[in-house]
């Protein structure tokens, strides 16, 4: 064999008159399914819009100390600084007089002012809304991702064991799942958080634990159903015949082929979880008063809910933040669903 022959590129294989596409390096690294998923996400306009929004939130969260500097380096940055104690909110543009944070470098260029004003106004109790929204982005991302990842892991473990092993294990795990499903989600989370707050103190943790405790069952059910279908396929049988261990079959062959619908659910849930967390905060079982959290900012508007024509800013800005955050995750989740839906396979990307 000559050197020329060994270095020549192989010709594309022809199947039924079509040339098979040569997979690129990224596709070989990720595998065909994950590559299709990634490609679909970056080519779908909806998911691109969602990811742009999400990137904006991530940037705000990362740049929070620059966008809204804490009043002192020693102060807890998650405590919203308050300009006095008056219950009546102040409109956007009013000068900030007490507990004034240091002026960041961008401030004068953007606003043309030397001193801080309340950019989005103040809520009842003179908590600065702009500061709360900026630092609340961190809280939203932290809570959303932490709760969804943890519930996803619990759901995957319970659903996988249940679906793969079947029999007694399936019976026990499914009855436990049904018991948890019998509780209405928000009401159960509210009750558990209310029980935990006096024991653990006010922080994000009681609400996070409550949301996790009552949030994993759907994932367990969905992954179980998918595993029941996938485990009967020929490639699983082939792996079993070759003597592969259960753990290898489950983690290498079954789970990667069954996990996609659960991932779609999870991506859609992040926005919903942040809304639920905001609902718990609104009802008063979340964080301490003054903690940077969008739900609590809306809760400050409770007493002024009938005068929103005058105090529109106390719900508009935190409400907009919540709306856009939920929308961003929903757009990404919808795009994921489109990509992974077998009926739409081949239509795009």
């Amino acid at each position, binding site marked *: 064999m000559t050197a020329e022959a060994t270095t020549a590129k192989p010709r594309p294989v022809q199947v039924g008159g079509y040339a098979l596409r040569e997979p690129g390096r990224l596709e070989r690294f990720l595998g065909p399914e994950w590559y299709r998923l990634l490609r679909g996400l970056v080519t779908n306009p909806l998911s691109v819009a969602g990811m742009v929004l999400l990137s904006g939130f991530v940037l705000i969260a990362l740049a929070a100390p620059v966008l809204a500097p804490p*009043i*002192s380096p*020693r*102060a*807890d940055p998650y*405590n919203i*600084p308050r300009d006095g104690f008056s219950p009546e909110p102040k409109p956007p543009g009013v000068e900030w007089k007490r*507990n004034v944070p240091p002026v960041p470098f961008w401030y004068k260029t953007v606003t043309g002012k030397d001193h801080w004003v309340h950019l989005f106004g103040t809520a009842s109790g003179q908590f600065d809304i702009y500061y709360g929204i900026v630092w609340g982005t961190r809280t939203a991302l932290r809570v959303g991702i932490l709760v969804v990842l*943890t519930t996803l*892991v*619990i759901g995957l*473990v319970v659903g996988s*064991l249940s679906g793969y*092993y079947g029999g007694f294990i399936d019976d026990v795990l499914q009855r436990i799942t049904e018991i948890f499903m019998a509780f209405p989600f928000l009401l159960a989370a509210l009750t558990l958080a209310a029980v935990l707050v006096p*024991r*653990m*103190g*006010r*922080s994000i*943790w009681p609400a996070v*634990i409550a949301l*996790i405790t009552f949030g994993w069952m759907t994932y367990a059910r969905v992954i179980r159903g998918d595993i029941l279908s996938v485990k009967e396929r020929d490639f699983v049988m082939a792996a079993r015949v070759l003597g592969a*261990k*259960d*753990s*290898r079959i*489950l*983690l*290498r062959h079954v789970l990667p082929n069954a996990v996609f619908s659960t991932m779609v659910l999870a991506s859609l849930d992040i926005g919903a979880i942040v809304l639920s967390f905001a609902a718990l905060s609104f009802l008063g079982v979340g964080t*301490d008063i003054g903690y940077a959290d969008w739900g609590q900012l809306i809760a400050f508007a409770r007493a002024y809910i009938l005068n929103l024509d005058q105090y529109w800013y106390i719900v508009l800005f935190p409400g907009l933040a919540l709306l856009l955050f939920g929308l961003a995750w929903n757009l990404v989740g919808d795009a994921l669903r489109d990509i992974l839906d077998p009926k739409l396979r081949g239509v795009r990307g």
Partner: protein
Amino acid sequence: MTSSLRLGLFNGALYGLALAAGVWGGQVITLLRLPLHMPALLFPLATLILVGIGAVAGGLTAVLNRSWVGAPIWALAGYAMVAVIGHTPYEIQSWLIGLLDPRFAGQAIYPYQQAAQARLFVAGFFLFIVLVVLGLLQDYRLDGILSETGPEGRLRPRGWFLLLAPLPLVVAVGSIADQNVQRPWRIAPAMVAEAIRVGRTYPGDLFDLSRETGFNYNAVKGLIQAMSAHYVLHVAELETQAVEVTARFDNGYAIHCRVWLDPAQLAFCYPADKPYREGLALLLAGESPRQCAACFVRTTAEWETWLAAQGQQIGAGPRIEVVQQWGSHVLVRVEGAGTLECLFGGLNPVTLLRCEAL
């Protein structure tokens, strides 16, 4: 020992080490920067315990060689690890102090707090989930890692990558425990050190500075003159919502500072040694310290009689000095014609625990 068992032990020990790094790593870095009394006392022992528990769980899972067995084994290991993390700052630290300094042996230097139990629940919740999942995956992961060994049985780089891959997750879970369990031990001394640093050097009015910054530097305002440059901090007492910190200066002066935890704020500081010096001097003189609010010492009638008798033997104007402090337990030596050593405990009020003539 089979290579599978060896790898199981090593993998479990790594989990323990990563957890210890997550739980205490940040704490050690912060505390070593502060002039704290024995800042890293606990961590080597506690790390060893976590590594040991991890190694046992990892080895057992490898021996039993069933993926589903990993879950209950690591669940038990997780429970033990959470217990160690939760009890280390309290009972284990008290026991270790007794071991290092037999004069304090048997004392509950840091009694276990119910509030710590609740904080531990948060830490344990996530740790438990992560360890159970890692336990389920161990069998599969170790098979993959074993296939990445070279002819001499050494791991290839990809094998090392697979082995170390879950450790950031364990460190992250450990850091949740750090935020919840260790935070009071860290922020309170840091706040007191900050107040002393600024209080001693700031040329302006500390009250105005406190108003501007939101940090209560004013707490040390009346005490600055008596402070010297070098000092040692002691975490004296932990309560549900507050921590008491003692700062002992090298000129013999000492202050107690109370730090609120939620929200974190330095509340106030006051001279620390009045009960040990003036209160004890009154007792030795046969007087009751009950009238002296700042130097009040709770004691029994038997000790009062005994001390009054000892006071007569020691003579007038004895030299009273603080010898050692662990937590709120303070050992005081009285020297005159004779020598006494008295152990005090607690802060509100200071209680005389025992005295002995040397």
